[in-house]
């Protein structure tokens, strides 16, 4: 009985203590404006560094406190979507700019152009900053622009007689590319032991193959300047025919539709393909790390892999197209909830978003991802960092060239049109494209399906008809 009483007193004491400490801590943060952020592991060490970034900011800005919630890449979008639809999102979240229209359409994104200083906005490359604009509003700051292209094995490229340096500098046409990847095929009897080109296309990753290549086929966006849906152009039919031909030639595997990102990287490192996609500049690091493991006979090296010198290559240009690069622009979106924050809080949110996207933070993130910063403060900080040892300078130059070719953002496309285009992409283009890759849907059938869906949503007058 005595023990029970003691236990009861103990529990009561703990409850009272926690009430008091809770009150004290609430009072402590009550003086400060709390800015919440939901962040994924942007780079390998980002989530380790974020605490020191936040600490430094909180020290410099005693009136503001950043509270960070971290989430894995797999969970972050779902977590954010749930919070947005529950009406209580974080103030800042890290997203891909292609998802911007969704949050703008939900009414939860904040136009921070009213709250951010002019210098903050002027710090960024305006073409890239535009990726975080929709209509007249600016909803966040970009962290980086990752050029998505293709990459090759230097040794195999040279064996196939491809002047890869020239390709990096001048690009290549579809015909040149087709010839090159046909030359890269190696056969062992009737079986192919090495393909010329391989792109991860399993499931929804087929969307990447389509999106990255279609830009160079004269359709840089789903809408032209007159806001007409462009994928109904006859250029689309030629583009689809050209892509199918690469499989029919035997330069790409006929099982392309089942090869996921992991499998294609494995096939690249094990010498089963000369060129792979999608290619990111950070793949140079992944290949180099594996080379090191092979040299050191490390058992964690990819099984049956070979030493690979990764070469960044541009996507070929199709008939009627121009050299463009697909830039995945990710960054910090600013959101509001049902709590209707005041102007002071929104100014603080803009300040925190800028802080995370610029300066030393941008420099370190970009260096880790083998990217070039896209803001002036980031470039300055980048120059002060110790350079990456053994980085392929040709790749660095190629990425710089590709960055200048990144297609312009289209903030002029209304959110509703964007949402309809995304639906056509998800419900018609990607499924039909998977069928095209499997040889079950002809280019003509796919083109017709796109036209039918587009006419239904945008009307014939709302589509390009040439």
């Amino acid at each position, binding site marked *: 009985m005595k023990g029970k009483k003691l236990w009861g007193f103990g529990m009561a004491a703990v409850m009272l203590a926690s009430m008091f400490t809770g009150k004290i801590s609430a009072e402590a943060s009550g003086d400060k404006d709390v800015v919440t952020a939901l962040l994924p592991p942007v780079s390998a060490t980002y989530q380790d560094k974020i605490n020191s970034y936040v600490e430094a900011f909180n020290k410099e800005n005693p009136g503001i406190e950043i509270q960070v919630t971290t989430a894995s890449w797999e969970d972050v979008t779902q977590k954010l979507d749930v919070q947005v*639809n529950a009406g209580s999102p974080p103030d800042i979240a890290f997203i891909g700019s292609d998802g911007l229209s969704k949050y703008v359409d*939900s009414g939860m994104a904040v136009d921070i152009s009213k709250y951010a200083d002019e210098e903050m906005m002027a710090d960024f490359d305006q073409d890239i900053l535009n990726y975080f604009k929709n209509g007249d509003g600016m909803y966040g700051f970009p962290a980086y622009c990752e050029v998505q292209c293709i990459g090759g094995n230097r040794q195999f490229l040279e064996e196939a007689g491809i002047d890869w340096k020239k390709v990096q500098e001048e690009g290549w046409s579809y015909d040149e590319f087709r010839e090159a990847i046909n030359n890269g095929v190696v056969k062992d009897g009737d079986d192919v032991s090495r393909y010329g080109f391989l792109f991860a296309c399993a499931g929804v990753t087929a969307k990447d193959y389509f999106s990255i290549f279609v830009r160079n086929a004269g359709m840089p966006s789903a809408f032209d300047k007159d806001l007409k849906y462009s994928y109904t152009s006859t250029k689309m039919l030629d583009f689809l025919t050209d892509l199918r031909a690469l499989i029919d030639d035997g330069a790409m595997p006929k099982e392309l539709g089942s090869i996921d990102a992991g499998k294609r990287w494995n096939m690249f490192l094990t010498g089963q393909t000369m060129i792979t996609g999608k290619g990111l500049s950070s793949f140079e690091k992944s290949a180099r790390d594996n080379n090191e493991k092979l040299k050191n006979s490390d058992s964690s090296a990819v099984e049956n892999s070979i030493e690979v010198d990764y070469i960044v290559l541009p996507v070929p240009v199709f008939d009627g197209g121009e050299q463009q690069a697909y830039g995945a622009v990710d960054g910090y979106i600013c959101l509001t909830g*049902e709590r209707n924050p005041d102007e002071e809080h929104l100014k603080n949110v803009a300040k925190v978003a800028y802080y995370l996207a610029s300066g030393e933070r941008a420099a370190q993130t970009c260096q880790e991802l083998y990217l070039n910063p896209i803001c002036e403060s980031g470039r300055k900080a980048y120059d002060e960092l110790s350079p990456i040892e053994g980085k392929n300078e040709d790749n660095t130059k190629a990425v710089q060239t590709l960055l200048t070719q990144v297609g312009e953002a289209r903030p002029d496309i209304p959110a509703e049109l964007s949402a309809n285009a995304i639906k056509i992409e998800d419900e018609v283009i990607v*499924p039909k494209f998977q*069928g095209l890759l*499997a040889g*079950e849907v002809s280019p003509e059938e796919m083109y017709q399906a796109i036209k039918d869906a587009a006419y239904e949503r945008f009307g014939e007058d709302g589509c390009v008809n040439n």
Partner: protein
Amino acid sequence: MQYPLEREKTMANKKHKLKKDALWGYVFILVPLTTFIIFTLYPVISAAITSFQHYKPLKTTWVGFDNYVSTFKNALFYKALKNTLVYTVFAVPISMFLSFSISLFILPFKKRVQTIFKAAFYLPAIASGVALSFVWKWIYDPMPTGLLNSILHIFGISSQNWLGSSKTAMASLIIMAVFSGLGTSIIIYIAALLGIDSTYYEAADIDGASFFQKVRYVVWPMVKPTTVFLAITGVINGFQSFQNAYLMTGGGPDNATTMAGLLIFNRAFKYFEYGEACAQALILAAIIAVFAVFQFKLSANDVEY
């Protein structure tokens, strides 16, 4: 003999006790009832209301039957329903037939051996869906060196693009569903088989019944309640299937494996169209209910629960 006053007192005591007992009964069912109200009833009512709305976190508008109209106009919805039906029609009977057969073969073993088999078959049920999808992707590797393709090569059959071709993608998902879900049905069937009194078998032996005759005339009728239960829950699960298509094919190629569950998920969490997603979910629930009632009427006339 009791005097009327005493009897009245006893009655009052009994009533009081009954009331007290009833009160405790209500207290005990309060927890599951509250859970049911919060996690089932409220979401269902909320979904029904949302199905008539264009939901936005800050500005929801009432749209009447628009979400139902757009659902019924959407060709992909019918394709998804057809895919779901095909998946269920094949996966459920095959799974039940295999689990029933395996249970019959496991039954004669000693308890320890039975446990080993049960554990082996039940293992996929406790593995995470993501882990299972990795294993099955490895099995369905489309290259000639892939596991299943290598086996086919032994029999002179050429490589198949299992998940990449609309001819084989659905079959691949069905095979995966069947083999990943056998464990639960086997355990339930074995429990039912163990419940059959041995005198029935002895009587059948005396009558000179063969193994198959015993299965047909003794086992099958005796496990009918279990079969009906597994068929109904299997059909419900089949209609609600989402995970395998989401993880293995994403609904492709050419929407050949897009199930109703995946369509609803995409509508809600990809496009934030909660109203239409709720409308689709309620239509699916109605279809499942019709199937369940039909199954009961067809096969469960002589089964009591």
